[in-house]
């Protein structure tokens, strides 16, 4: 299955970041029988004019690192299980690099929007008197003066105009050309800001109206009947009060109500979506810095974004027959919300609902143990045990780009992601971040002790990997990174089943 994910605005980028972390951990969509879907590919398209947005930059870096790591481990093949197993590609890649107008990037090029003031974008000064008067009534002077390279500063009325050029972009045309009936679309956006609230309906509208679009050359029927899912994130964080800022917490609810009303009329209410996920949290975060965009906008990761990322996994897990679309309308639209099993202010993996625990707990724990293993043990063990089996893992492996990307880039961001979620409110603290003892590092659950061996330690993992590695010719010379991943997962799968069997 190929899923096109449009991540719109800052929330879109942050949810996408959480999705990358979950995919890196090996979380995968499952079919109705609970088996992992085999051929899964995600094509993220980040739609945000605010290219200097730190949230966007962090997500873009993670996407690149994920792709590089995955390429080193699995090549271009699909993988059925494991860390980084879900394929992530750019639009240009899946077009086999045939498009000359597309850059090999995950970012949507918004052209003029990213360079102009809104006033210039709509040619305000050259409008007829009537249009001038109309625009003056629709847009404030602040709106008109907005430099859109910092986004739409919480003003969906700007975004709904500026993003209308979406359909004429090379990205949308490329997407329309390559889209196939078995593919799906997912849109991530927040409802209480500017870019997401405006971008979401525009993307849906352009897909559903493809039949009448001059931008879509072929494939019109397929595009129009695409299976579309969407995550609409309701207010979940607080911001500092700043009378000079165009963004105010008091507007969040009003904007949400207005947008929901609009969606009810023209999106959800008219069956444009096959599946819509609503997510929010009444418990607000500690106030974020009130930054309309000038200072980079770097918000801490939040559990809502991680749960939001799960909506994408859930959407991929829905069978085709439940997402039927006729004449651009979903026949049986689905609407979903989310609840925690325990709504405490500080939660861990055991506070998630059962289906979520089954979906992510084992994978998250495995990945965290892997992170600790790489950080605290692996380098000291080179030249011993499984590292000496063919293909050998030598000291030079530590300076290979794969290993450096994993340990110096990806895992650093992983640590930051965990720390930010722990610091944010509601606090999501799945792991004890300063704890290097793998028997004690998971919050809410400790490893069971055996009668003779006690709890687990790194050497249990390393020894297990060495035992599993005994099989001759299991890995080719080009599969050194895969060997590391595969052996670790085989061993830790068994350890978790034995030592943490209440985890799921």
């Amino acid at each position: 299955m190929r899923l096109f994910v449009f991540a719109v605005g800052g929330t879109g980028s942050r949810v996408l970041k959480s999705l990358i972390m979950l995919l890196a951990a090996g979380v995968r969509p499952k079919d109705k029988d609970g088996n992992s879907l085999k051929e899964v590919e995600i094509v993220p398209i980040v739609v945000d004019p605010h290219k200097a947005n730190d949230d966007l930059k962090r997500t873009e870096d993670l996407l690149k690192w994920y792709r590089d790591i995955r390429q080193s481990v699995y090549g271009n093949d699909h993988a059925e299980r494991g860390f980084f197993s879900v394929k992530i590609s750019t639009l240009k890649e899946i077009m086999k690099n045939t498009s000359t107008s597309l850059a090999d990037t995950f970012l949507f090029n918004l052209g003029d929007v990213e360079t102009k003031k809104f006033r210039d974008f709509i040619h305000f000064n050259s409008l007829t008197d009537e249009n001038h008067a109309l625009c003056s009534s629709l847009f404030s002077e602040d709106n008109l003066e907005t430099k859109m390279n910092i986004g739409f500063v919480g003003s969906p009325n700007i975004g709904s105009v500026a993003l209308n050029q979406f359909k004429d972009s090379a990205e949308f045309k490329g997407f329309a050309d390559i889209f196939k009936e078995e593919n799906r679309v997912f849109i991530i956006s927040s409802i209480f800001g500017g870019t997401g609230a405006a971008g979401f309906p525009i993307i849906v509208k352009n897909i559903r109206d493809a039949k009448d679009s001059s931008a879509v050359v072929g494939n019109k029927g397929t595009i129009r009947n695409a299976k579309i899912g969407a995550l609409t994130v309701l207010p979940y964080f607080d911001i500092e009060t700043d009378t000079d800022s165009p963004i105010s917490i008091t507007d969040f609810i009003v904007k949400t109500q207005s947008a929901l009303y609009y969606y009810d009329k023209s999106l959800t209410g008219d069956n444009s979506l096959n599946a819509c996920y609503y997510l929010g949290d009444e418990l607000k975060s500690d106030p974020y810095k009130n930054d309309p965009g000038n200072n980079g906008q770097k918000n801490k990761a939040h559990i809502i974004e991680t749960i939001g990322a799960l909506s994408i996994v859930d959407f991929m897990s829905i069978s085709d027959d439940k997402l039927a679309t006729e004449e651009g309308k979903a026949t049986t639209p689905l609407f979903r919300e989310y609840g925690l099993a325990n709504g405490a202010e500080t939660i861990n993996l055991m506070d998630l609902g059962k289906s979520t625990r089954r979906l992510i707990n084992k994978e998250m724990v495995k990945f965290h143990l892997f992170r600790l293993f790489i950080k605290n043990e692996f380098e000291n063990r080179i030249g011993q045990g499984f590292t000496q089996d063919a293909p050998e893992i030598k000291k030079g492996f530590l300076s290979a780009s794969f290993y450096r990307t994993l340990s110096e880039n990806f895992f650093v961001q992983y640590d930051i992601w965990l720390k930010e979620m722990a610091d944010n409110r509601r606090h999501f603290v799945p792991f004890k971040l300063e704890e290097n003892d793998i028997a004690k590092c998971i919050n809410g659950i400790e490893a069971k002790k055996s009668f003779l061996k006690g709890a687990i330690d790194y050497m249990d993992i390393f020894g297990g990997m060495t035992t599993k590695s005994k099989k001759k010719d299991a890995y080719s010379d080009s599969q050194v990174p895969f060997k590391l991943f595969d052996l670790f997962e085989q061993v830790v799968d068994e350890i978790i089943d034995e030592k943490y069997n209440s985890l799921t």
Partner: protein
Amino acid sequence: MKQAILLFTGVALTVLFLIFCSPIYESLYYSSEFSNEMYNSNMYFVIAVLTVLITWVVAGIYYYVINSVRFSRWYHWLIMLAAVTFCAPTVTYVYPNAEFTSQSYDYAVELMNFAVVNLAVTIVMFIIASFSIRWWSSQCRHTPIPQ
């Protein structure tokens, strides 16, 4: 295949050692009266069997009972070698010494020299045993040097 050949070679060398233990020991250390007594009382063979048993059993314990990555560095193997080089010559000194003492012979000095020689034999035999059986160890197959 390589492993099977090495096992076969190790077993063959060990059997050859047991068969030709007397000339081997005498070529390494000869003192006419002591050596004659050792030969006549079949002590060379007993000592060879004890040496082989100790080295192969200790190697087996290391690779298949201890069998742990926690104890799989080359210096861990050296510890086992040190243990075996202490045990085997000690046994091969104590046992014939007791036998000779019961017969009122005093070969303490010769036995000490012979024990030193048998120390070298023990080292060689432990290496042979290690390189014969280590390949199938789940944790220590790369000890003392990688495959």
